[in-house]
Structures are given as structure tokens and as C-alpha cells.
């Protein structure tokens, strides 16, 4: 396999995620674009894991770097960690979005008032 194909796919997906975060007004669509970016990073982790592991066959690896046995699958483990982080992120993010919707009846991120609540009600 040519490792450059999934690498470039991951880079393009990340660019699409950045585009979506900057382009979209709806907070839920912004979260979807963030998921795209996290997936791109996961894809690059897994590809790097596969490519580096096959490129390192036959190389004597320092024992202190791997205290328990042979190296391998660290990229996959990190991808799993990122998936867990993404699940936590989307849970808290949607709680914030729903609470904001309950308060203001809107989900548009560029209309969020950044000034303090007191100024708005004119106290």
C-alpha cells in the first residue's frame, strides 16, 4: 500500500473541517465539522502507525522505550483515545447548544451576545 493516499485524504478532510467551522453559522453544523477534523487526525494516527511499524521491521528498538514487549499499535490506541475525547466533547457541546437554544430560541453562533447579561437588560 502507498501510505501517501490515506495521509492526503486525512489532510483534505481536515481542511474541509476547518472550512466548515469557519463557514457555518448553525452551532450543530459547527460541531459536525469539528467531528470531521477529529476524524482526519485519527486517520493520520492510524496511517502513521501502519507505515512506521512496517518501515521499522528489523530495526533494533531501545528496550527502555517499550517496557513491556514489542512495540506496535500505539497509533491505534491514540485513535481510540481521540474517539473517546470526541464523544465527551460532543456530549458537552450539545448540552451547551441545547441550553443556549432554551434561553434564546436560536442556534446561530455569530449572534451570540458577548457582552454581559446585565448590560443587555439595562440594569
Amino acid at each position, binding site marked *: 500500500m502507498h501510505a501517501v*493516499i490515506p495521509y492526503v*485524504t486525512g489532510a483534505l478532510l481536515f481542511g474541509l473541517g476547518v472550512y*466548515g467551522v469557519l463557514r457555518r453559522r448553525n452551532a450543530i453544523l459547527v460541531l459536525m465539522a469539528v467531528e470531521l477534523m477529529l476524524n482526519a487526525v485519527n486517520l493520520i494516527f492510524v496511517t502513521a502507525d*501502519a507505515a512506521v511499524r512496517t518501515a521499522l521491521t528489523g530495526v533494533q528498538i531501545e528496550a527502555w522505550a517499550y517496557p513491556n514487549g514489542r512495540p506496535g499499535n500505539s497509533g491505534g490506541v491514540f485513535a481510540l*483515545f481521540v474517539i473517546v475525547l470526541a464523544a465527551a466533547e460532543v456530549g458537552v457541546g450539545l*448540552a451547551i447548544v441545547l441550553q443556549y437554544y432554551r434561553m434564546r430560541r436560536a442556534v446561530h453562533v455569530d449572534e451570540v451576545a458577548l457582552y454581559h447579561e446585565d448590560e443587555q437588560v439595562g440594569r
Partner: protein
Amino acid sequence: MTVADVLLLALGAVAVGSGAAVVTSTHLVRSGLYLVISLGAVAGLYLVLGAELVAWVQVLVYVGAVVVLLLFAVMLTRAPIGASQDLDRPAWPALIVGGGVGLGLAALFADAFRWTLYARPEPGTAGRMGEQIFGQWVLPFEVLSILLLAALVGAIVLSRPDIGARTGDEA
């Protein structure tokens, strides 16, 4: 071009194409469904790259839970059925930054890895992954469980108005 290359190219094209549909579609629900296709194609890429467990976890957690959660949120915020015109901001800054990041990273990777042929790795089955997680990475794993608990409590506190509500004279 081996079979793995053809599969990688096809799945990558599906992932990028439906990813583009996610960020350009004018239907909220369609965006979510395109996200399912994109995440499924990425799971297929994981399978070709030999990360079996990651692929199945991706299907279970992302397609099964995260996207369903996003669609729930779409429904709960009373999103309009059909196309809505007010989803987007002006395109130019996003196009410049996003296109710059995507194409720049792609050029960087293409320059770094060229057309080098790698042997296919041995599959990362649940046994091997578990050995790694509970051997080398056990401390991050435990920290991650604390983080999940914190996110759970945080989401509950955020979405219940009767917890942490300020009393009248203080607000």
C-alpha cells in the same frame, strides 16, 4: 497499484466527497446523514490499514452514538425541514483558511512520503490493542475514564436548569 491502493483511493474519495457535502449542504439533516457516510468510509480506511478494532469502535461510537446525538440535537432545536438559507456565513475567509490548511497539509504529506511502497501491517486485533492499552497506556486510559465522568456530570449540570440556578437577588 495493488488492491489495497485501489480500496484506499475509492474509500478516500467517498470520505472526502461526503465530507464536502457535510460542510456545503443546505439541509441540516442531510448534513448529518452525509457525516454518516464520511465516517463509514473512514472506518473502511481503518480496516484496509489493518486497524480492525479502531474501525469497529468508530462504527459503534461515531456512527452509532455521536451522529445519533447530533441528529437528536437537530430535532430538539426545531430545525426546519427542507433547505434553509441562513446556515452559512460569507465564504471567502473560510475558503482561504480551510483550503490553505487542507491543500498545504496535503502538499506537505505528498512531499514527505512521495510514492513509497509500504508492506501491509499485521492487523491490530482486539487482543493486540488490549495488550497495548492495558500495558503501556494504562495511565492515560484511567485519566480518560475520569474525563468521561467529568463530561457526563458537566452535561447533566448544564442541561438541568434547577441545578446551580442563581437566586433572585444574586442574579
